[in-house]
């Protein structure tokens, strides 16, 4: 007990000292995100009921510097848009033995508005929760009779960015009950499991320490409403499972594979922690 008190005092003292000594901000900023002067983004809202440890959820955009934030305010400045345009062409290009394109069935990509917001979701046909990537590959193989794309490869990530772009501003709203519930529970277990030699869980950084600096990184809540994400760090579009993989790897753990049942479950769970935030993809982060 004495020891615990001592630690608590130290932490309180410590926070005061570090704020003084290094002037780092421990909170998300107060900036408002409106894209292209018209898409009003919800970057802060009440946490969904299922979240016990967090009251307010914030988009990762709120944790980034003004310079990084600026890249996402106008599509002319958002480097992701090059690949969105590439995917737009692919959308209309017939491929595969059935000589069909996406637009053969779905017409303009605008018809897909709202889709990104509800994935991953339960599929009766597949008998499991599927991600948007898996749905795209299902279309390619079954309807177009074309080859599946690599789960987190460039073609796929570009297409997901295109699909996200037409849902921008709509609230993330993945279902976690009914047939999706057991997958959601599995994802929650993974979120709180301390992996690897560093024994770190997603929650250690993104629930318990968002707002704090870990070396040069300003920890966010690890929300995925902005995926795919263009990162200044690697100057490309990043798929959400590739990001998960990077995080798990950095705990000195054996990662799960992009598209694996574990990462599908984790994606559903993490997406559900952002229910109510706007779809922002393709976003820009550092």
């Amino acid at each position, binding site marked *: 007990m004495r020891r615990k008190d001592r630690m608590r005092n130290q932490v309180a003292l410590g926070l005061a000292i570090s704020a003084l000594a290094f002037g780092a901000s421990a909170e998300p900023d107060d900036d408002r995100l409106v894209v292209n002067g018209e898409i009003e983004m919800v970057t802060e809202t009440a946490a969904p009921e299922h979240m016990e440890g967090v009251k307010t959820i914030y988009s990762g955009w709120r944790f980034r510097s003004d310079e990084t934030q600026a890249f996402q305010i106008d599509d002319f400045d958002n480097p992701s848009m090059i690949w969105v345009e590439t995917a737009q062409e692919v959308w209309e290009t017939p491929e595969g033995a059935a000589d069909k394109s996406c637009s053969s069935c779905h017409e303009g990509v605008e018809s897909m508005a709202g889709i990104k917001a509800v994935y991953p979701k339960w599929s009766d046909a597949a008998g499991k929760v599927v991600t948007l990537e898996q749905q795209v590959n299902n279309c390619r193989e079954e309807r177009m009779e074309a080859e599946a794309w690599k789960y987190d490869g460039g073609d796929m990530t570009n297409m997901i960015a295109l699909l996200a772009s037409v849902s921008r501003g709509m609230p993330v709203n993945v279902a976690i009950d009914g047939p999706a519930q057991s997958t959601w529970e599995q994802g929650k277990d993974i979120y709180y499991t301390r992996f690897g030699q560093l*024994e770190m869980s997603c929650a250690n950084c993104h629930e318990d320490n968002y707002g704090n*600096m870990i070396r*040069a990184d300003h920890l966010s809540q690890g929300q995925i409403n902005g995926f795919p994400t263009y990162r200044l760090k690697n100057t490309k579009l990043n798929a959400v499972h590739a990001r998960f993989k990077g995080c798990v790897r950095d705990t000195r753990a054996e990662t799960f594979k992009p598209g694996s049942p574990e990462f599908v479950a984790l994606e559903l769970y993490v997406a559900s922690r952002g229910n109510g935030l706007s779809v922002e993809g393709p976003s820009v982060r550092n």
Partner: protein
Amino acid sequence: MIRFAIISASVVFGASLACAEGIAPQQVQFEDGAIAASLTGVAGDPVSGAELMNKGSGNCIACHAVTELEHLAFHGEIGPPLDGVADRWTEEELRGIVADAKQMFEGTMMPSFYKVSGFTRLGDDYTGDAHPGGEVTPLLTGQEIEDVVAYLMTLKEE
């Protein structure tokens, strides 16, 4: 057969060498989270300890701020700042905390720097692949723990 003999000879040699160097991670005795004796019997080097604060598998300032190391960029805010840490803890307690902080603070996020078992999905360094099996290298060697502790013992304010 010959190869096997050579391998086992080197394993035996390696093991006896580790013994000669001090207390292996599996043999460490914690008492209220503290470790009474030096892990190596060799006095820690605070200069090398200061290096480990900044880089390598130590990288303590990723989570802890240290005013004395302010010339180094980006100190973290995850754990308590370490200014005056030697006033608050004994050498034995600091050794225990650096070796395996979970012994002192249940559930702490701090990695265990001198621990080699009990991990979930242990990887092969930072490759993302599974650990190949066999001996697990702790994040810091016994001497590196002693060096870090020696540096921390210099952080006095009173």
